[in-house]
């Protein structure tokens, strides 16, 4: 009965319920409108709470998916064994061909390609009127793990079971009758006046770029209204939708607390129209569909406003979870240079097996015997007829398997490249000495992690008029610590030199087959030009040029602003580098290390 307790429409405040009730409600809404909501991203490790939630799906016999699933079982294909037995083709449908519930376990380990394939399959089934409700179980243990972005985008709802006790999670079956009733009336549910613009503004203020989020939000609000037996959405529906759909997608927080946010925050460029007038969405009359909710006067006296939705979204998730999700996004962005060609490399000999492909053996390729036999099997009858044709009665040939060159399948593997992490540390006078100590501490922690992950770490320091490769790429912890301890501070900031050196190092690392990444700890105020002169203007021009050159090499990078007060210089640097900028207003070694770990330490396996 947890569902009834939370979905009460008389709840005035923004608090949409406990995490457990939210998760149950999300599941119910998904059951009502799988086509519109796509799926549920459930943060939950294996445990009794998760089992209890999954048990609710048991009657629907959900499909089980896992990240290492081969393409042909996802997409379907010929069932060779059956085909040979039956002497007639037997096709196996894709796992999602019939839609329905599907549970993807260890979703954070899904590769973007597999994720895209799952979504593709679900879309095709949906187009045939067989919508899929996908439940992705995210078992991320560290900040460095995150759901692949195609999946994060395609799942409308989010719920988090972390930190719940079993006692907080009363067992309740899915309200099947209510769901059926809600499904029946779903298509007739309209949005209240002003709901659309309130959702759009909320997305804008929370920094949610994709319009899909807004569509999911509307779908969730409609499903919730239908669940409540209402034909027009009200404020409570929208608040719950914001909590379940928008909260986890927020990439920034409004600067003012929600209860004082009478005016929109200054950082959104065009000031949104005053959100409390329901007629703000005045689009060009010829382009707006005429039938939109005109005939249904809003029964709700007070329309939902962006502020209420934001408050609801903010209340839905603990702040540290948002920070973690944000870290995951940064991690994904950092991995971008590597995800395509770099870090994962097709290999002939070692690594994770990939599907075999046809080709000619030789040059160290290994033949996949089983796949080759499977490839050859269906054609035996045809070939035998061709080979024996004129003298078909010759006995022994008929027993022999006829394998032709086109059948040969080669083994393929995916090997992981080593990562080389370059720290560029500003040891100049402008970067206060205290910050330098913090940076050193963080690097030491990173070194320990890197050691565990077998990453290479290098250190480039810059002060005075030169940049110095204080530590060439190494996995030796002791050596790294020693060179850090002796790091002096003070002097001018030859930032351009450091970036130039990083460029050379990155090229070298690539030549060695490593995947380089940069972490720049600076205040961004380079003041020594490449020619060694203390000309500030020239220095900044050189810095930007070098940073752009690094960006052109597509090196994933992160800039950590070490200045006490944020300045535009460091933003310029981050933009030129194409890097994520992280401000550390009062970072200690552990905080710094955690941020870096999230951004750079994502496991690319």
């Amino acid at each position, binding site marked *: 009965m947890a569902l009834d307790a939370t979905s009460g429409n008389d709840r005035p405040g923004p608090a949409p319920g406990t995490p457990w009730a939210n998760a149950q409600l999300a599941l119910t809404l998904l059951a009502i409108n799988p086509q519109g909501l796509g799926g549920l991203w459930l943060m939950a490790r294996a445990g009794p709470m998760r089992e209890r939630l999954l048990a609710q799906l048991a009657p629907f016999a959900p499909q089980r998916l896992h990240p290492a699933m081969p393409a042909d079982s996802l997409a379907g294909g010929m069932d060779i064994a059956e085909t040979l037995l039956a002497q007639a083709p037997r096709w196996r449908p894709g796992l999602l061909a019939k839609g329905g519930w599907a549970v993807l376990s260890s979703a954070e380990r899904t590769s973007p*390609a597999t994720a895209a394939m799952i979504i593709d399959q679900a879309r095709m089934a949906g187009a045939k009127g067989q919508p899929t409700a996908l439940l992705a179980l995210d078992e991320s243990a560290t900040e460095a793990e995150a759901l692949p972005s195609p999946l994060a985008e395609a799942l409308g709802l989010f719920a988090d079971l972390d930190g719940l006790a079993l006692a907080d999670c009363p067992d309740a079956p899915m309200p099947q009758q209510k769901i059926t009733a809600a499904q029946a009336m779903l298509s007739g549910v309209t949005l209240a006046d002003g709901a*659309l613009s309130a959702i759009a503004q909320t997305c804008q203020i929370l920094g949610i770029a994709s319009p899909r989020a807004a569509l999911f939000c509307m779908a969730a609000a409609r499903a919730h209204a239908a669940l409540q037996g209402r034909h027009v959405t009200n404020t409570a529906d929208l608040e719950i939708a914001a909590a379940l759909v928008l909260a986890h997608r927020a990439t920034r927080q409004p600067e003012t607390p929600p209860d004082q946010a009478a005016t929109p925050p200054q950082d959104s460029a065009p000031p949104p129209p005053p959100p409390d007038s329901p007629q703000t969405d005045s689009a060009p009359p010829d382009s707006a569909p*005429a039938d939109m909710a005109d005939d249904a006067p809003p029964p709700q006296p007070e329309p939902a406003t962006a502020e209420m939705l934001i408050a609801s979204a903010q209340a839905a998730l603990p702040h540290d979870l948002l920070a973690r999700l944000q870290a995951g996004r940064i991690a994904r962005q950092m991995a971008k240079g590597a995800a395509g060609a770099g870090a994962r490399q097709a290999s002939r000999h070692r690594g994770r097996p990939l599907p075999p492909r046809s080709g000619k053996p030789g040059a160290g390729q290994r033949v996949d015997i089983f796949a080759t036999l499977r490839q050859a099997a269906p*054609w035996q009858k045809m070939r035998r007829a061709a080979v024996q044709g004129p003298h078909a009665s010759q006995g022994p040939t008929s027993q022999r398997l006829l394998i032709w060159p086109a059948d040969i399948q080669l083994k393929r593997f995916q090997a992981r490249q080593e990562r080389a992490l370059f720290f560029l540390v500003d040891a100049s006078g402008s970067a206060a000495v205290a910050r330098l100590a913090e940076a050193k501490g963080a690097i030491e922690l990173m070194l320990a992690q890197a050691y565990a992950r077998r990453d290479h770490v290098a250190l480039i320091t810059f002060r005075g008029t030169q940049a110095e490769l204080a530590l060439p790429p190494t996995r030796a912890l002791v050596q790294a610590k020693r060179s850090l301890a002796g790091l002096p501070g003070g002097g001018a900031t030859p930032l351009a030199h450091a970036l130039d050196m990083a460029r050379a190092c990155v090229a070298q690392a690539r030549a060695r087959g490593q995947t380089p990444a940069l972490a720049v700890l600076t205040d961004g105020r380079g003041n020594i030009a490449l020619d060694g002169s203390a000309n500030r203007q020239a220095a900044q021009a050189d810095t930007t040029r070098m940073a752009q050159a690094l960006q052109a090499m597509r090196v994933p990078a992160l800039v950590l602003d070490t200045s006490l007060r944020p300045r535009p210089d460091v933003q310029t640097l981050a933009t030129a580098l194409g890097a994520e900028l992280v401000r550390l207003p009062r970072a200690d070694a552990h905080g710094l290390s955690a941020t870096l770990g999230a951004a750079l330490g994502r496991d690319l396996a």
Partner: protein
Amino acid sequence: MTPFPFSAIVGQDEMKTAMILTAIDPRIGGVLVFGDRGTGKSTAVRALAALLPPIQAVQGCPVNSATAADCPDWFTPTGTATETRQTPVVDLPLGVSEDRVTGALDIERALTSGEKAFAPGLLARANRGYLYIDEVNLLEDHIVDLLLDVAQSGQNVVERDGLSIRHAARFVLVGSGNPEEGELRPQLLDRFGLSVEVRSPDDIETRVEVIRRRDAYENSHASFMAQWQPQDDALRAQIVAARQGLAAVKSTSIALYDCAAICLALGADGLRGELTLLRAARALAAFEGAAELTRAHIRAVAPMALRHRLRRDPLDEAGSTTRVTRQLAEVLP
């Protein structure tokens, strides 16, 4: 459900223009759409297919041949009668096998009667239409290579078990993807005719309009489609007229010189850039009903025709689009 109306897509003008140009002159080559999620990339491709006029094809022909003479030799048409078909748009699912793309021996006939016969694949179905790959950067490299080869030669050749099959495969390749998941190799980039970058709208009115229209499409489908029918019809008529007018568009030697000059200034490799630029500009001129190709047409299509062909300059990565615009301002004022 009928696809979203093409004219109802809010903004994203460059993407829409690029797609319309390939509909006018398929020889421009494919379109690559890279950008944020949820910007209507897939929607636009499906919408375009529904917008295009139907084609005439020989009855039963697996490769949509226009006349009986065009039919491949492994297919015997029952007569010369033709039928009307929608412009084919074939989705290439990720994880597709090479066999399904190119076609292969018909496994059913091989098993049951031991006969060699050809079972056409996705390339056959896409002939004279569109082949759409979502998340093209996640597709296996060997499949992308194969597709680009076929797209360029217009011929699909399958050699297997002593059978040699070929058939026409002329299609417009549309690839879309999100750069976050990895880039395409430069060799592949260059083989797409046009490339556009899409971004999520960042002003509130546009965003409201996007979701309003999508919402109306999903929830008051019939009236929404009816509302946009006239715009789509007008656009279709304009595309058909442009196709007919294309041959009549004059390109002066000044225009040819302009194309060469901008490609030279940008250091775009090979002649593919010039040719695509010229074709795209001519298609645009035809679309606008102009009698002659002007510098304005070239300027308008130069970014989409050239931005993916630039050599990466390690000291100047202001973004390829900026580089093209900058050179345009200098070379073709």
